[in-house]
């Protein structure tokens, strides 16, 4: 696959999305550079999940442009018309985008190793031996070398989420999307997942992360986008957005998150 010249991992321009009559995304402009750890924060219902789901084509969008790794995602051009992408095109684009879900969504009937290598074996059609070798490497990277043969039901929430991360990065994606990866975890188990994500960021993995873990965003983020009402309300370095924001909505939101009660 030839790498396009542009440096953007993700670029969206004027992205719009409605569910029936309700418009959820009101024209989002957002760019993620290669190697960035980009965070999205914002109030509940502001459209953060919908945005990530559009990037991964789990939702279609109604207008705007969405480029991942230099390729149009979710749409095709036919002359002047932009039309929804076909299922096969979407699948091939998606193979280069990893996604980690809030509720892990591991395949319960597969072991950790089988989960991690499912894409390699079933989509990329690698041979089992080769795929499993790579799978073990990945599991080692998330600190689960010794749990390769465990089923998800035999793993703690934190371990399940680490397997899910390994699965998401298995096919060397250009970007990994995280949708509140720790919010379904017991507080005690949050740390181990954040540790893995911190390592990935350090290794230069491009990541787009929706989270409520503000201090983690501050520590690890290259850039933070604050989304409100289906638009990017503010973008900037973590310290700019989180510590020194002038935007009253941002301040209000952060106050509510920080000091419960």
């Amino acid at each position, binding site marked *: 696959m030839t790498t*396009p010249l*542009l440096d*953007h991992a993700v*670029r969206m*321009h*004027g*992205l*719009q999305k409605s569910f029936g009559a309700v418009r959820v995304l009101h*024209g989002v*402009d957002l760019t993620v550079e290669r190697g960035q750890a980009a965070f999205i924060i914002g109030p509940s219902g502001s459209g953060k999940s919908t945005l990530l789901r559009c990037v991964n084509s*789990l939702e*279609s*969008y*109604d*207008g*705007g*442009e969405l*480029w991942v790794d*230099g*390729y*149009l995602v*979710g*749409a*095709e*051009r036919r002359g002047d*018309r*932009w*039309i*929804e992408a*076909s299922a096969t*095109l979407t699948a*091939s684009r998606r193979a280069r985008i990893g996604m980690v879900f809030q509720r892990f969504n591991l395949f319960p009937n597969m072991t950790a190793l089988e989960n991690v290598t499912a894409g390699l074996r079933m989509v990329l059609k690698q041979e089992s031996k080769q795929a499993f070798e790579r799978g073990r490497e990945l599991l080692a990277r998330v600190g689960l070398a010794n749990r390769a043969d465990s089923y998800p039901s035999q793993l703690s929430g934190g371990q399940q989420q680490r397997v899910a991360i390994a699965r998401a990065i298995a096919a060397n994606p250009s970007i990994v999307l995280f949708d509140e990866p720790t919010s379904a975890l017991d507080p005690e188990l949050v740390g181990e997942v954040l540790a893995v994500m911190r390592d990935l960021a350090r290794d230069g993995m491009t990541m787009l992360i929706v989270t409520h873990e503000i201090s983690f965003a501050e520590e690890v983020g290259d850039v933070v986008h604050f989304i409100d009402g289906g638009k990017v309300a503010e973008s900037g370095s973590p310290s700019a957005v989180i510590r020194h924001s002038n935007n009253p909505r941002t301040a209000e939101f952060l106050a509510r998150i920080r000091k419960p009660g």
Partner: protein
Amino acid sequence: MTTTTDIESSRTTGPGPRIHRRPGARIFSTAVAVLAIAVVLGIAGIVVGSGTIHWEIIAQYFFAPVMLNGVATTLMLTVVSLAASAVLGTLLAAMRISGNPVLRTIASAYIWFFRGTPLLVQIVFWFNLGLFLPRLDIAGFTISTNSLITPTTAALLGLFLNVSAFMCEVIRGGLLAVDTGQTEAALSIGMTPRRALLRIVLPQAIRVILPAAGNLAIDLLKATSLVYVIGTKEILGTVQGIAAQNFYVIEMLIVASLWYLVLVSVASLGQSWLEARLARGIGAAQPPAARPNL
């Protein structure tokens, strides 16, 4: 696969393009619809065009009083045995989920037996109970079994006992579908287990039970046709009796089919209506309807 126009351009101003639905899906839909209509019309054309069917016979018998009697009997058998089985089925379901192994075993054995033997056999058995038990002694009175067990009683008894076994499973499924948290919340406000079951769990279980019970009712509607072996004249028995006289067998079977289609459709509509009614105020509390992206 990737055309050059899909490589990122650097345009970042102006409103983004509108994304249109793929036309392919619409074309495919239309093609399939046309094909389906063609198949249905084709079959209808063959059946009608063959000229073998005497439509006037169908018209003549569809609303004949004897047919309407048959329909009424079918309905009566269905409604009565369904209602009775709701009671026995609930009892059996409560037994099956109880902590008491003896009750569980009894309920399981009941279900095994009544699900395991054909309804036909059960109906014939009850009809001929007098063969084994010429008279019943109830509270000092002796009564001849045969005067107690009319064909209708036998039919109802057979249908009711049989369908109760299925109803039990339906109700049990409904009870298990209600989150345990509901029972716990009910207990925590001081309800006894029995009251929690009746006042909190059952009303919610109904939403799960109804669709399955609807299926059961539809099956039962058609299963009642079996009672014609003991001479209870419901829809199928009636048309067969007529067909044996006039030999318009296919026509009379069509009459029966049409009646069953009508009854089943009405039953399905009633079921949907009830489900919608019961979902009031609850709808959104359920997990959003699955949207398999397939």
